[in-house]
């Protein structure tokens, strides 16, 4: 068995040190050693993107990265999205637009969209679909995920972030 190494990296702004075998995948370190169990595992062929985290300013599938490669890296997971208990615009968007059902793909979807909106703050629907194509979802059929990302993009651009959901709009109007 290969000797273990200590790896230090930043996880949601906090320094962490872990001792791992070289073969340990980052997803397993995050889930099992760091107890960040938001990132999920949905496949073993690098397709599904449920394990997506932000890694040195890139969206990466943490199932296809060795933890030893994370030495000195800045890693952000879904647990690091909300600030001071306030949801990130994307989390709010996914909630308001019904962009999740079982929630298994959601942490990866959120982290991918987090990077996408920094690279392209005003994406078209086609661009959202193209640049989110590394994330599979079994539940939603993607339609509401697109709306959720659009909602968050509007909010992050400082525009009014109104839900597309007619009943919520009607309900909100009724309450006034």
């Amino acid at each position: 068995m290969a000797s273990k190494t200590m790896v230090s990296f930043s996880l949601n702004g906090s320094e962490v040190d872990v001792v791992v075998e070289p073969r340990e995948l980052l997803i397993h370190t995050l889930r099992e050693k760091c107890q960040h169990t938001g990132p999920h595992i949905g496949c073993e062929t690098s397709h599904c993107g449920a394990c997506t985290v932000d890694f040195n300013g890139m969206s990466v599938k943490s199932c296809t990265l060795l933890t030893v490669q994370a030495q000195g890296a800045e890693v952000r997971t879904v647990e690091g999205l909300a600030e001071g208990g306030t949801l990130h615009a994307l989390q709010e968007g996914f909630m308001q637009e019904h962009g999740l059902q079982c929630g298994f793909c959601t942490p990866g979807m959120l982290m991918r969209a987090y990077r996408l909106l920094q690279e392209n703050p005003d994406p078209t629907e086609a661009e959202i679909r193209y640049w989110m194509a590394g994330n599979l979802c079994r539940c939603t059929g993607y339609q509401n995920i697109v709306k959720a990302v659009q909602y968050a993009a509007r909010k992050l651009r400082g525009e009014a972030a109104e839900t597309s959901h007619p009943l919520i709009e009607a309900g909100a109007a009724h309450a006034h």
Partner: protein
Amino acid sequence: MIPRPFEYHAPQTLSEAFALLGAHGDTAKLLAGGHSLLPMMKLRFAQPEHLIDLGRLAELKGIREENGAIWIGAMTTENELIWSALLQTRCPLIVEGARQIADPQVRYRGTLGGDLSHGDPGNDHPALMVALDASFVLQGAAGERVVPADGFFVGTYATLLEPDEILTGIRIPMPPPGTGYCYAKLKRKTGDFATAAAAVTLRLAGGNVEHARIALTNVGDTVIRATDAEHALVGKPFDARALDEAARLAMAACNPVADLRGDVDYKRAMAGEMTRRALGTAYERAANPARP
């Protein structure tokens, strides 16, 4: 999901990398983006005892103009290719091709050099590089040699790269203004390897085809250059008859294997259709160079 144990090395310089390759011989594998190697290791198709990570070698990164050619470091990622202003303006075929490779996350990690060194006939860059007449810089501890892309791929997962060599860079002759291009890829879904695909560069002169290069993806045990189809086009007007003949000759050059993407006849037919579409688009782009 769980790879076999191995020792991990992260050299800081190329000479350190060569020393490690020399010390561990064929029990070692080079780790680039890791998006072909790690998946194979997770399924235990590959079980190297040593991984030599090239990720910290800055000298293997970058895209620049050099002596009238384009130089791309082997560790340059797919997204870096897509976002390169130099490639977008001077060599858009690479951008068009890279946009059809895998998905965003994979493209943050997967590298041009890794896609080529892997030698998988399903990969897209081999055909793009053959269509662009690229050359590969192979370095060993003793020095470097430069080999053309056309001829580098010798079989499935087999290339001219020796076990003690590292593909360090890719050189692409600057495509002359007015070069038409296209990568037409048929795939079942985003992120899939091609059922069939065709990479084309095309130039016109005086109403005739002056230059044509056609390379086919995933319809043989390696990339296939459709030289007969090229010959059928050069020196003649680009018309329906020439296009039919080129597509027919491209199909004749194929040697696909049946799998879940289709049987031999289907793949061969689709190689012809992708050739037809790539040539058509490349012709339009060559004839109307102002239009992107």
